[in-house]
């Protein structure tokens, strides 16, 4: 069985994995990182989105062996020093979540979206989040939250 080395939310793991094991199952069932949920089996919903070496990836569509040597950040490792990431705070402030199941993936996708465009228009946000489905919010408040998160992240960059 292949052995992989993977860093998840700042902790390094060495794991023997079946070649077919999905990254999301490694996270959830081997490492106990259940903050990342599974919403589908066709990579449509994006609920399982994590950061893989700094870019968003649907962890249901990545084999654990493909993540060998990678740095993974999940929703659980996003905040620093016990406080939430500005995007998490923005989702709270704008009421951008209801049941919360899509939220971890949505937050990750939103942060990645801002790498390409730190000050996105509503249209850019809507198209940028096309790969993440939400059934509760109708997306209005998610769009608002991403705008707010972008502003706050921009301010943090400017003041740091």
């Amino acid at each position: 069985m292949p052995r992989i080395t993977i860093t998840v939310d700042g902790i390094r793991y060495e794991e023997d994995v079946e070649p077919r094991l999905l990254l999301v199952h490694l996270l959830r069932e081997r490492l106990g990182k259940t903050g990342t949920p599974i919403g589908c089996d066709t990579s449509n919903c994006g609920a399982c989105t994590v950061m893989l070496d700094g870019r968003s990836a649907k962890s249901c569509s990545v084999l654990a062996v493909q993540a060998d040597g990678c740095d993974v950040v999940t929703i659980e490792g996003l905040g620093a020093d016990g406080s939430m990431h500005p995007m998490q705070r923005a989702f709270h402030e704008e009421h951008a979540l209801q049941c919360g199941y899509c939220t971890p993936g949505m937050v990750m996708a939103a942060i990645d979206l801002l790498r390409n465009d730190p000050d996105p228009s509503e249209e850019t946000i809507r198209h940028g989040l096309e790969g993440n489905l939400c059934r509760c919010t109708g997306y209005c408040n998610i769009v608002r939250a991403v705008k707010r998160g972008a502003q706050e992240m921009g301010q943090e960059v400017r003041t740091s």
Partner: protein
Amino acid sequence: MTELDAGLVGEQIAESGQVAEPSGRREIGRARRRKEDARLLTGHTRWTDNLQQPGMVQVMFLRSPMAHARITRVDVSAARELPGVLAAFSGRDFADEQGSLPCAWPVSEDIVIPDHPPMAVSEVRYVGEAVACVVATDRYRAADALEAVEVDYEPLPAVMDMHDALTPDSPKVHESGNKAFSTTITSGDVEAAFRDAPVLIDRTYIQQRLIPSAMEPRAVLASTDGDTFTLWSSTQIPHVLRVMLAVTTGIPEHRLRVIAPDVGGGFGSKLQVTAEEVLCLLLTRRLGRPVKWSESRSEGNLTVHHGRDQIQHVRLAAEADGRIRGLRVELLADMGAYLMLVTPGVPMLGASMFNGIYKMDAYEFACTGVFTTKMPTDAYRGAGRPEATYAIERVMDELAAELGIDPLEARRRNWIRHDEFPYTTVSGLTYDSGNYEAATERAMALFGYDKLRAEQADRRDRGDPVQLGIGVSTYTEMCGLAPSRLLGMANYGAGGWEHGSVRMLPTGKVEVITGTSPHGQGHVTSWSQIAADALGVPFDDITVLHGDTAVAHKGMDTYGSRSLVIGGVAVLQACEKVKDKARKLAAHLLECSPDDLEFEAGAFKVRGTGASKTIQELAFAAFTAHDLPEGVEARLDSDATFDPDNYSFPHGTHLCAVEVDTETGMVKIRSYVAVDDVGKVVNPLIVEGQVHGGIAQGVAQALFEEAVYDADGNLLTATMADYLLPSAADLPAFTTDRTETPSTGNPLGVKGVGEAGTIASTPAVVNAVVDALRPRGVRDVQMPCTPERVWRAVQGTRGGERS
């Protein structure tokens, strides 16, 4: 050991800053950010699939690939031999103990409720029905073992079309035939209303089959210590489920605990007693190990109950000036293969709503429930009311077109005026309050109605290939399911009350326990607001417990826009009882009459003196119980069960503008305005969120979603790649506002909001699409209004009806 000095402890609690000063600001009506969010945003979640138990094993189900077949052989022996496999079973192995999945709503005398084994034993009746299962150490081992199970089927003919199913020579889904029930409701002289009516509208609408698609797939975990059983399930109804599972499995109710941990949306789809819940309980009983089942999305599309699926024949008779004389509705409702928890009740929930907000003299509703070899249908957001609202709101536009008047004018000539409430409708419901004029006026102003009509006229004149359509929906709906008395009259198997409890803790903190079972609705926040105002304690000093039958022992759960209207009121009433007890104690401690006390900002004050006791001090005094008056127990804790006298009736006006590209058939929503009257609002942020999400689901029915079976009964939309759920890129921003006429049916004045958006938006969107194309002779486009259907309608070919 330190001796407990009550006075000292009381002072310490007061001085520790633990008891915050009440702000004096009313919580109800405030846009509080949700208490639920922090956990959900940081991944500290308890979805059922996250849960682990010592020794836990995983079950997977083998599902029928045939829509209708006799099972002639199931061989699980090879699967049992594979590594990591604990057990493998066929339906025959459960035949003596699995019982039948319950239907709680026999809606008519003639109803046929066929046996519904959780695992098929001798016959399968839809693709996806479980025929065998494998229990293994993990999901990968279980999936391997499923491959080794052998099943032989003898195919039987699929029954897919409701009209065909009702013909005498149709193959039968069940021995008893394909008719599940039929019922007729008549009010007024329908024959007279239609005789010589100057205007007659006759239309048939298809309510396509939908897949509810909560983002969290279902999951179940069952465990036992040999004596008691615990079932965790991604369910909306832990309390109803406990009762039903006790009845189905024979596990005595007092030895069964049901927990709904974090639940990721439901929309009605988790208002069910499922085969998997029953089978996981039977498996843990048999194996003595905790058994978990985690549904895959593709499995869920096949086996989570579907919604809608009706054929509606609607006839409306009117005077020459547009005043409605009468309405006739003939409904065929696709039950699918079995009657599940409230399957036959769904079309009946719409029975009294086809008349909408309009006055008329006569009404007839006839409904036939039909068995087909498809996944059973059941509650999906709105359950019966979206279907009814769609039919009447589409027909009102047809009436307007027939008369050559504005669709809003056709409605004005018929709707109940604000000074006519309370109003008893032709179908017998009494609408307590409302103001359709005000909501419509506000919506028209926000929408820029006249300006858009002018643009529409201009585009028509210019022959613009992109036409503008304006859709109207002036809906009402029936919320707060339901007065127990009315449920009894409707032959439903349970009541519609809700329970709430308040525990006053010694340190002045408050636990609210509710029988509602939130799965995204924010009850923890809203119930905290209600209790904070009622008790005068700080919002942050309140916690809300729910979703576990061992904690919240009484409840009827969350569906049918009932939670606030019934459950929120129960919380309020429990708070009032706490205050009644506290008042007696305060009077005793302050040596005055209870009548001399006034309650303000969380304290009982003796009128005319400075003496007072806060509710927190009284909670502590009740805890120490050193000095209680005669006949007063050592607690302020109270509970209440609220059962409303009537439904509540939110309403509103939704306006939708679409741009329809007549060359490609593409529909783009240009603007959407929703003005809803949901009565008093506890948390405007949460209300707005519910409206947004509701509109999105209604728009999705209008434009995107359809569960499609082929002629052999295979579901062609079995994955999320095939069933089109709208993304952010597919939807516009919605403009929302509210008008407010308080409900007179409950002390909070609230009406409910969970389903309003979905009920309102579908006809608004389709009316807009048809409005864009009406000059070209189009008077209907079947849902979902895909580019292909719209294009065909424009071309005057199949898929769109022309006048």
